């Protein structure tokens, strides 16, 4: 069949099309159309010839078929060591085969590849770390996702996600007006407890520009307030942009590179416009990956860096606690076994493991911090990375995948896990719902607020009066 009404090779670019696609509950019609969607083999081959160069071709060619990647893959381990979950098999039988056939593949091949690309790999990149040849199958699966997306073979939710970015410049339908209103609302709401607290929008030349995840204003506006409280406590000169505030990229999970570029351009335009000294992103892994690590390349910056220094929230927080700009009340330090989730996107893929541990050293009483095994660069994916969390079609596979983190958490004996990443946070919430292991999970912001010492000049006035009386 040619293109379907919902499942086709055209990205969603209008609000109308987006709403229509959303109206197809669960993607019922979408997947039905996908089962008959044609493959444009010529376009696929042309695309492969243009974008699959020596690095990837060499990876596919020199793979020694040694199987060392098998044990490195949490999806292989958690799926009863199914040989079809061996990373080398997964990539060779999809991308490798696509190239060997010079793009001459059929609908069934593409649907199988879609299942492999989104339900058998979270792009955590751990396999590349364990391959003697340095073959990074996560990178190749991300590349494969782009090829599949361009042919219309992408999970329904991610087609919507990429469409959201194209239409609203955010992963959810949060317009610039909604966003600015949320900032005003949150600032107002905090006045009683935090007199003088501001959420300055579009303030030029601030020390910090803050960017975040659209689900914060959409579903967890208190997260925006918490960020504001901590900047207020630390006495920072900060701001948020009215446009270009959305840091995430479901388009990266979808493999919609054009939308990825548009997204990052929006954020970088805000940086150029407002000229902050540096930018700080929220407690999110993939947002950091998209906007700080990969983003500069999507927009073609030859130095591979954002326009100004762009750091993760944990870097700012470590620095702030180190400098004593926010002080922790020793009596409020964590006194229960607590562990830490290393996000693949900024730990394995950006080396920030020391920052989170430094933060833990300030907020956890000695003897209560328990490392997961393995940890840091070797840690396993939360089980829901790379878009896995959000795909209804693959919910069963995702729930199986969560068992890795479940067992890691159980082995620590911890009752609390600090998860400074939206995806990890969601995955841990879902694994608790699914498996009931009695773990609590938290971002850093609410933790720090609950244990920070509030200096007198930031205390509410009436409190002072009461004290005076």
């Amino acid at each position, binding site marked *: 069949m040619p293109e379907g009404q919902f499942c086709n090779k055209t990205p969603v670019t209008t609000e109308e099309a987006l709403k229509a696609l959303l109206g197809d509950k669960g993607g019922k019609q979408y997947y039905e159309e996908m089962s008959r969607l044609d493959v444009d083999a010529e376009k696929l081959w042309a695309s492969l010839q243009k974008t699959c160069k020596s690095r990837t071709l060499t990876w596919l060619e020199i793979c020694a078929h*040694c199987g060392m990647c098998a044990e490195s893959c949490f999806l292989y381990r958690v799926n009863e060591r199914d040989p079809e979950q061996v990373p080398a098999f997964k990539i060779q039988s999809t991308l490798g085969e696509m190239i060997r056939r010079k793009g001459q593949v059929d609908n069934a091949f593409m649907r199988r590849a879609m299942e492999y690309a989104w339900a058998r790999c979270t792009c955590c990149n751990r396999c590349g770390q364990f391959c003697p040849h340095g073959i990074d199958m996560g990178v190749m699966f991300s590349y494969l996702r782009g090829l599949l997306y361009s042919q219309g073979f992408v999970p329904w939710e991610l087609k919507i996600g990429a469409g959201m970015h194209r239409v609203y410049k955010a992963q959810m339908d949060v317009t610039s007006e909604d966003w600015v209103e949320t900032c005003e609302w949150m600032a107002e709401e905090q006045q009683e407890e935090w007199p003088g607290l501001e959420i300055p929008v579009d303030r030029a030349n601030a020390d910090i520009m803050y960017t975040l995840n659209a689900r914060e204003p959409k579903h967890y506006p208190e997260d925006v307030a918490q960020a504001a409280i901590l900047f207020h406590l630390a006495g920072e000169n900060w701001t948020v942009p009215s446009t270009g505030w959305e840091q995430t990229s479901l388009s990266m999970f979808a493999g919609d590179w054009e939308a990825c570029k548009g997204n990052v351009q929006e954020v970088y335009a805000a940086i150029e416009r407002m000229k902050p000294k540096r930018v700080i992103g929220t407690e999110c892994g993939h947002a950091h990956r998209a906007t700080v690590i990969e983003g500069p390349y999507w927009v073609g910056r030859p130095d591979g860096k954002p326009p100004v220094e762009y750091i993760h929230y944990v870097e700012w927080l470590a620095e702030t606690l180190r400098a004593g700009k926010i002080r922790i009340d020793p009596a409020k330090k964590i006194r229960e076994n607590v562990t830490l989730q290393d996000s693949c996107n900024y730990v394995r893929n950006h080396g920030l493991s020391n920052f989170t541990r430094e933060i833990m050293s300030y907020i956890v009483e000695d003897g209560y911090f328990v490392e997961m095994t393995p940890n840091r660069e070797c840690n396993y994916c939360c089980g829901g990375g790379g878009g896995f969390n959000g795909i209804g079609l693959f919910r069963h596979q995702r729930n199986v995948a969560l068992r890795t983190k479940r067992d890691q958490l159980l082995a620590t004996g911890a009752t609390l896990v600090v998860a400074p990443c939206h995806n990890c946070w969601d995955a841990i919430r879902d694994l608790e719902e699914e498996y009931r292991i009695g773990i609590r999970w938290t971002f850093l912001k609410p933790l720090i607020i609950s244990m920070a010492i509030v200096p007198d000049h930031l205390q509410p006035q009436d409190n002072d009066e009461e004290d005076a009386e």
Partner: protein
Amino acid sequence: MLYTFLTGPGLIISLIVFFGGLAYRLAMYFKGLDWRLERVAYKPYLAEGMKGGLHSAYKWLIPYGTYGWRAQPFFTLCFFLFHTGAVLVPVFLIGHNVILQERFGFSFPSMSQVPADILAVATVIGAILIVLRRIALAEVRILTTTYDYCILALATLPFITGIIARLHIGSYEFWLICHILAGELMLILTPFTKLSHIALYFASRWQLGADYGIKRGGHRRGPCFPW
């Protein structure tokens, strides 16, 4: 007669194809790197790239030197049994160096016969263990193709024939010719097969190390990525 040809023009042709072919493969690899497609700013951060890349290539050459090697102790043993001899014996064997000296007027330092014998036998044992592992483990079996066995045979045949000749089993001349033929066949086919990893290993390892050094963390995590 045949011997003279094989250790004369035959050897020269084999070495030219081997080195020329591998140099070509390496050149094409690096020429084909694309900072936009791989999303790694190679040029502006060449120093970081070299540091990360060389560190990554070096670490993986050390037995049990990486998390990966330590996670698979048995395969690591097979791997190093096989590769240590496969790399050292051809270059440092006294017999080879005598020929080099005769034909080209230079030679490498030679190792004495006993370690050479041990390494050669270890290579064959390593190859056998690698084959057994391929058959025994489901996760390796699913990946294995006939081509993989052919490559392993191609790389091991010079050692098997060399050991037989050295032990003077049957006709020494016959096995010596077989050994030279097997060796030269391997040299000639290397650039065109998976054996090109002899050179491309360094390219591929360098690339991922450079990727981590330049883009994925670099100095933030300390000296280099903890392989």
